[in-house]
């Protein structure tokens, strides 16, 4: 295997900060850290409320897995790419695009989190013309996340944020928009 499949963005997901050696957080602190107002009174069974909170704040996915062979192959390519070598870099990017595309066959059966992760990665791969160190590192991180069978909202959000920082622009797919009223802001809402 080209790399140990441990994500840089939180890796063995689903672990609480406490289980990772971080400070133990109380329920109210956890709610606050998740952006949920702890002063909100929860009525009914407190256990049920906590379960509901966990599923809303850190919902995780465990479903079918991405094709690990393809993921490992992609990571291997990325580990060997030399961004300064334009020839090799172009070949690597082409191979990477094919692998990412092939991954849809397995990821289509996976969770929404896996599908979101692959979409983030594919958007970046399709709109990238040159590989550089930061992109290689980000692609690798996304691939490692894909191989993680238990992804959470946090993984996807961190990845999304990271790729935006790398200028994997949100509306990249609209670049090839046909001619028309590009600023048709008064279009009646679809019904």
């Amino acid at each position, binding site marked *: 295997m080209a790399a140990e499949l441990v994500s840089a963005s939180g890796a063995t997901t689903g672990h609480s900060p406490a289980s990772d050696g971080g400070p133990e957080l109380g329920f109210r602190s956890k709610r606050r850290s998740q952006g949920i107002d702890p002063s909100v009174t929860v009525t009914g069974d407190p256990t049920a409320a906590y379960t509901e909170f966990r599923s809303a704040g850190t919902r995780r996915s465990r479903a079918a897995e991405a094709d690990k062979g393809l993921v490992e192959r992609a990571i291997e390519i990325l580990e060997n790419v030399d961004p300064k070598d334009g020839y090799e870099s172009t070949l690597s990017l082409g191979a990477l695009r094919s692998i990412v595309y092939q991954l849809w066959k397995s990821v289509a059966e996976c969770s929404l989190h896996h599908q979101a992760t692959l979409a983030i990665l594919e958007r970046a791969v399709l709109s990238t013309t040159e590989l550089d160190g930061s992109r290689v590192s980000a692609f690798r991180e996304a691939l490692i996340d894909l191989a993680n069978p238990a992804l959470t909202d946090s993984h996807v959000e961190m990845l999304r944020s990271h790729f935006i920082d790398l200028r994997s622009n*949100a509306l990249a797919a609209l670049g090839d928009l046909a001619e028309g009223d590009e600023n048709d802001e008064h279009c009646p809402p679809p019904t």
Partner: protein
Amino acid sequence: MTSIALPQPNGPIKRAHLDTSVLVELSKEEALAAPVRLALRQFPFTSTSSYARKEFKQAWLKDLGWLHEIARTATGQIDIVRAINNRLRHPIQIRHVTRCLDAVVRFLDRQGGDLTDSQWAIRLRSHLAEMILSAYLELDRLVTHEFDGTQCVRAHERPTQAMNGSIDVTIPRCRATKIRCAVHGFFEVHREHFRRIAAAVDQRVEFVRAEVAEKARGRPNQLEELMRIRDTIRRADADPTHLCDIENCSKMGDALIAVDGVNDTDAFVANNDKEWRTLAEALHCELINPVIRQGRETASDRASA
């Protein structure tokens, strides 16, 4: 490009105020966004209005959200095209949604392959969802400051994804009977600015009418939006709460965005010259359009050429 001001090495910090159209360009592929970034490099301070966020959502994210909702149950591209034709009635809606779908499909087809119809639909759906969810996040980072004079409640409602994957990009209708923003107060504070815009539109209308009569060829749509802005300003001048209905504030969105930043900017940056040229003249600001592409002008460019 309409104009590019020269940088002033020792002068005050230059400030630019961005329209929705430019925010959209900055969100597109880097090859298209790069010229805009280049034009903005001379402005250490860039701003927009929170109202531009609402326009962004209304003009683009809603259509993407609609396609996403259709793609959630579709088994292939034919299903989606059929849904566009069967469920949408308004020709502008059909054109807008179809253009979005075509662009996204062309982007994804850069890597041709052999996915089944359902895998293809899942791939499309996932990309649409990511576009919507990333867009608001990206908007937060495109400018250094966002003015919030109108306190548009719809602008601050971020798209959200439910556990079942559906995405909420709806913009519920605001009504004057239940005011939730400050657009009426904003109008009162900036009444003079808005009156100047209405007067500038009058001048522009006169000028174009004379020109059209002289050249004996009309461009009926060229002034439509400007006249809509002027008429809405006139209605709001009599009763500012007229703007508290989303149908009405939307008619003068460009004017609201411009006035929101007018006191703190040196230049407006916009892609749709036909409205912004008049707004910039009325508010005595420079106008920069960094988006005119070689061999591919926009409808707005053609209209105002």
